């Protein structure tokens, strides 16, 4: 039956990558979630938080003998929109957020009722205060001229884009690797593969590789769109940024694989991933600075895998920071990737399982070798963190062992 033609060679690694790529682009829903969703986020948030000029404040004046006079005093300032209501209506409107504050009383004794936890209320209070003082005859001691600064790099959208890139690397890595792997396990496809002489390292590498391939357009779409629509610029080294994105993606793919090692159903893996990602959506500084959280929990925020990635992305994109100044961030990321790579390696006694991971400590080590001191602390911290994570992950069983 065999033909005399020379036997064709097939690369299992290439075939595995090809299969993943084909499965991906033949799935329109996946395409939307991976590429459409981050774009919609940038557009929506970019519009919602675009620079607002001339903020207006709604001011309620409580009915009383001096209400009309107060109204007249506030009217000249075009930032204020004052109106008179009875006491009960005023309180209702304040409670439901329809007004920024209530002015009660007659000169020279006013009461201003407002919510000091709302920044716009506090600003409104100061504007009203100044107007009432001036109406009563206060003169300004000095003159101040406002000069407006709205430079690219300092706006909210500039802050947001690196955060969204980090978020999409996290989501893509975890879902694209973890979910896919569990799905394969449920379909018994993983078992079927293990029934062949396929090398486990080929399988793992192919999953990683395909993830990297899908990630490139994902990140490019966000960056290019942010540039075209909002003028978001990259101030730092593009190659450093590329390296960071690549590294971040590897890290989250690895964590996705680790999570997948435990889950036996799609519900379990969904729950596990959401549980893992939820704290980071809030705590890792995607939408606002981590510094807003109490000092006591800062160290914990810092070791979440997404926090250093976003911090480093912002450093390179907005502050043009060299990688060497981000050694702390990179250390934590290496620990996260190493921790699980080592786990996989030990279980299977194949330390060459993912050679890519071995390169990272070297690369980051050289990058941070600005001073001897820096390098030493870097290595010490790295070992400590790596060890720590390995112990934490000791409970984890590797992905393929379960099958």
């Amino acid at each position, binding site marked *: *039956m*065999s*033909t005399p*033609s020379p*036997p*064709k060679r*097939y*690369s*299992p690694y*290439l*075939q*595995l990558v*090809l*299969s993943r790529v*084909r*499965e991906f682009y*033949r*799935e329109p829903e996946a395409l939307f979630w991976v590429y459409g969703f981050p774009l919609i986020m940038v557009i929506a948030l970019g519009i919602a938080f675009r620079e607002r000029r001339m903020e207006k404040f709604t001011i309620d004046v409580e009915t009383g003998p001096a209400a009309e006079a107060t109204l007249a005093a506030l009217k000249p300032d075009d930032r204020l929109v004052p109106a008179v209501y009875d006491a009960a209506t005023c309180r209702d409107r304040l409670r439901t957020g329809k007004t920024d504050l209530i002015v009660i009383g007659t000169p020279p004794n006013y009461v201003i009722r407002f919510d000091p936890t709302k920044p716009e209320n506090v600003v409104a209070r100061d504007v009203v205060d100044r107007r009432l003082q001036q109406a009563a005859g206060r003169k300004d001691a000095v003159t101040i001229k406002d000069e407006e600064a709205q430079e690219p790099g300092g706006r909210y959208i500039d802050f947001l884009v690196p955060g969204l890139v980090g978020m999409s690397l996290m989501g893509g890595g975890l879902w694209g690797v973890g979910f896919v792997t569990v799905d394969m396990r449920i*379909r*018994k*496809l993983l*078992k*079927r*593969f*293990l*029934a*062949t*002489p*396929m090398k486990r390292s080929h399988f793992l590498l192919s999953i990683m590789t395909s993830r990297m391939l899908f990630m490139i357009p994902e990140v490019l779409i966000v960056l290019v769109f942010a540039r075209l629509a909002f003028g978001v610029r990259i101030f730092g080294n593009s190659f450093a940024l590329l390296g960071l994105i690549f590294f971040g993606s590897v890290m989250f793919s690895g964590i996705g694989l680790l999570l997948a090692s435990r889950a036996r159903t799609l519900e379990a893996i969904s729950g596990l991933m959401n549980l893992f990602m939820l704290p980071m959506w809030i705590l890792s500084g995607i939408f606002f600075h981590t510094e807003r959280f109490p000092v006591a929990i800062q160290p914990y925020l810092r070791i979440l895998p997404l926090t250093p990635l976003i911090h480093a992305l912002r450093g390179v994109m907005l502050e043009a920071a060299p990688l060497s100044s981000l050694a702390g961030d990179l250390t934590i990321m290496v620990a996260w990737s190493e921790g699980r790579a080592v786990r996989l390696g030990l279980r299977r006694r194949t330390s060459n399982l993912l050679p890519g991971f071995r390169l990272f400590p070297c690369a980051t080590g050289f990058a941070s070798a600005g001073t001897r001191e820096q390098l030493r602390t870097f290595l010490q911290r790295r070992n400590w963190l790596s060890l720590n994570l390995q112990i934490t992950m000791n409970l984890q069983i590797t992905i393929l062992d379960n*099958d």
Partner: protein
Amino acid sequence: MTCAIRCHQLTKTYPGRPPVEAVRGIDLEIRAGECFGVLGPNGAGKTTTIEILEGLMPATSGTVEVLGMPWDKADREIRQRIGISLQETRLSEKLTVMETLTLFRSFYRQGPDPAETLARVSLQEKANALLKNLSGGQKQRVALACALVGDPEILFLDEPSTGLDPQSRREVWAIIEEFGRQGRTVLITTHYLEEAERLCNRVAIVDRGRVIACGTPNELIATLGGEHVIEFAVAGDDRGPAVAWDDLPAVTEVRGDHGKYALSVTQPHVALPPLLARVNESGRELTGLAIRHASLDDVFVRLAGRHLEEDSVEGAPQ
């Protein structure tokens, strides 16, 4: 004759409360070149046994050798030389038949061209069809092709025709028979009698984790003492004194009660006239009569007290 697969005192206990003893000491010797069937009802431990033999599941105790090598020493080497079809694998729906076969082919160091394997399962015209557009029978043939791409010496098939319509089932059998004709070894689990009788040179009947009989289908049927079965039913069997059927000429064994009986007989034409006479004498009414060749099911019923293809094990009479 050399041994393709050998296992000795194989046991498997799944931890739990209480622990489940799926396999309780199975010995098998599958010779090179034969088609060997593991026949048993659902839940008998067939899949557990074959997955241990395939090196996909560790045994609790016992030894396994495939092609003369133990799994823990020669995993990669054995895998290169065997082909496996699992009971249930959902291959990627978004890949074409050809892409799937090429992927599986790439894992093996030798083997025919994927197109050639495709021809063996008669799916050439579906080469570029996505798997999701194939029928159940066609998907099963793709799964078989995936087991055949590495030109294996041994084929492991776990219930290859379960859930297929009769036509697809015959197509699957034809592929397995063709493979067997090349002098290769096949290990197949099934709970279909017809499948075992048609494909297998030798059969091990398993029940509750043990081999209860092993031999060629003819040998096993011969243990019944007669190779024909007369099945008959009488109405009003609970009336009057019980009737004895086992002293009729040529009858070797009687099974059944409540008016439904199956007699193992050596010569139906000798047994039948006195049987009918006795029904007549007893005043009962004959409501059903059939003569057929004895099957492996009769063997199973004799050994296990219930039918093979009954769905629930619990509901079966002891």
